[in-house]
């Protein structure tokens, strides 16, 4: 009853998949945050002029990620780009995350009280100093929970990269399931690993938030 044909090599294989998942999430959030901060600031400061940008980002948010992967992958071949599947995955996930992050940053910036900004400007801070020392720190605290949610959801979305041939955690477990025919056990292990990664991310985030909250 308790016998299983899962081997330590299989477990190692799963962990390798998990590492790929982590790397993909890191890169996607790195690109996504950088892009989101830039686009979000632009959207908040020049809402009219950046309307076309909003439409483009809307498209990236509404088209299912799977379609974006496949489309970009074929586009890549047509354009003759010599990108690895991993780079493609990072790029697509990064743009997808950036599209969401833009909205998070935009609403964070807009939530900073204009009166507080005014007080800053009245002391002689110029536009950029106001942005750097008042708006950004305040908006970061406001936007952080949304950003953390995005990180967790991007981590789960990385599973879709299996469609362009990358073996991450979910794909790794599928491969093992196919071989040893013990889906319940393998998927439970994979689920636990996802859960564990999320737990670490959420914990780190909560600690940061708590440190900020002590100040309020």
């Amino acid at each position, binding site marked *: 009853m308790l016998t299983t044909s899962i081997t330590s090599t299989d477990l190692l294989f799963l962990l390798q998949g998990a590492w790929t998942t982590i790397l993909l999430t890191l890169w996607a959030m790195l690109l996504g945050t950088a892009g989101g901060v830039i686009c979000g600031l632009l959207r908040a400061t020049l809402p009219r002029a950046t309307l076309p940008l909003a439409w483009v980002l809307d498209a990236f948010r509404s088209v299912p990620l799977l379609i974006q992967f496949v489309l970009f992958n074929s586009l890549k071949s047509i354009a003759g780009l010599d990108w690895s599947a991993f780079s493609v995955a990072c790029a697509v996930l990064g743009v997808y995350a950036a599209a969401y992050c833009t909205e998070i940053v935009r609403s964070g910036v807009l939530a900073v009280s204009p009166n*507080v900004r*005014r007080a800053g400007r*009245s002391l*002689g*801070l110029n536009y950029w100093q106001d942005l750097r020392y008042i708006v950004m*720190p305040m908006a970061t605290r406001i936007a952080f929970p949304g950003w953390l949610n995005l990180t967790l959801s991007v981590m789960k979305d990385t599973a879709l990269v299996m469609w362009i041939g990358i073996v991450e955690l979910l794909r790794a477990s599928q491969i093992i399931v196919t071989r040893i025919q013990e889906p319940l056990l393998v998927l439970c292990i994979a689920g636990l690993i996802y859960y564990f990664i999320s737990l670490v991310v959420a914990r780190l985030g909560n600690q940061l938030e708590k440190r900020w909250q002590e*100040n*309020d």
Partner: protein
Amino acid sequence: MIEIENVHKSFGDLDVIKGVSLTVNKGEVVSIIGGSGSGKSTLLMCINGLEVIQQGSIRVDGTEVHNKATDLNRLRQKIGIVFQQWNAFPHLTVLENVMLAPRKVLGQSRAEAEEVAVRQLTHVGLADKLKVFPGKLSGGQQQRMAIARALAMSPDYMLFDEATSALDPQLVGEVLDTMRMLAEDGMTMVLVTHEISFAREVSDRVAFFRNGLVHEIGTPEQVLVSPQYAETADFLKSVL
């Protein structure tokens, strides 16, 4: 010297200031009183260029405020303003709130800025709150911090916009004391206030605003005790 000449200001179709002239001399304390919506706050914001004007001119020490060539960030260094809502920077400690502008705008070293900040905060009675975040302060304490924050820039002028009207009655006194201290030190000040007795005590002149115009102006005795116009008297009756 602040010279306000025939200033007009509107928000879209709404004319808020309709030709105000007012001169504030060095060392003078001028109080502005008047009903809600008469344009008092708006005028203060125009003085340091936080709001643009449509007509007229405002000069501070001879510098035209509403002139494209004027470096507003530089001009604002010598005009401190304290708002009704104290507008603390919530992510910075009390000390950091006060040090921010001297460091970033005046380029002071950390030690220099800290020395000035501690001195100003001690002056307003917050020496024991340096490392505290504003969220943990009472309204009166936050307002005194805002005053210290403005004073740390060593301004030549201080503008107060109803600095006490968002405070609980028992906290009003401590903020008024701080302002009284400044007036005694010879600071040039413009006070928008509803505290008539305080205005009478510290002001050299009082201006009564009505419908975007200076309706009556003169010494505290003239305007507050024996006003010339019925509107002024009515207003005084309504706030006393």
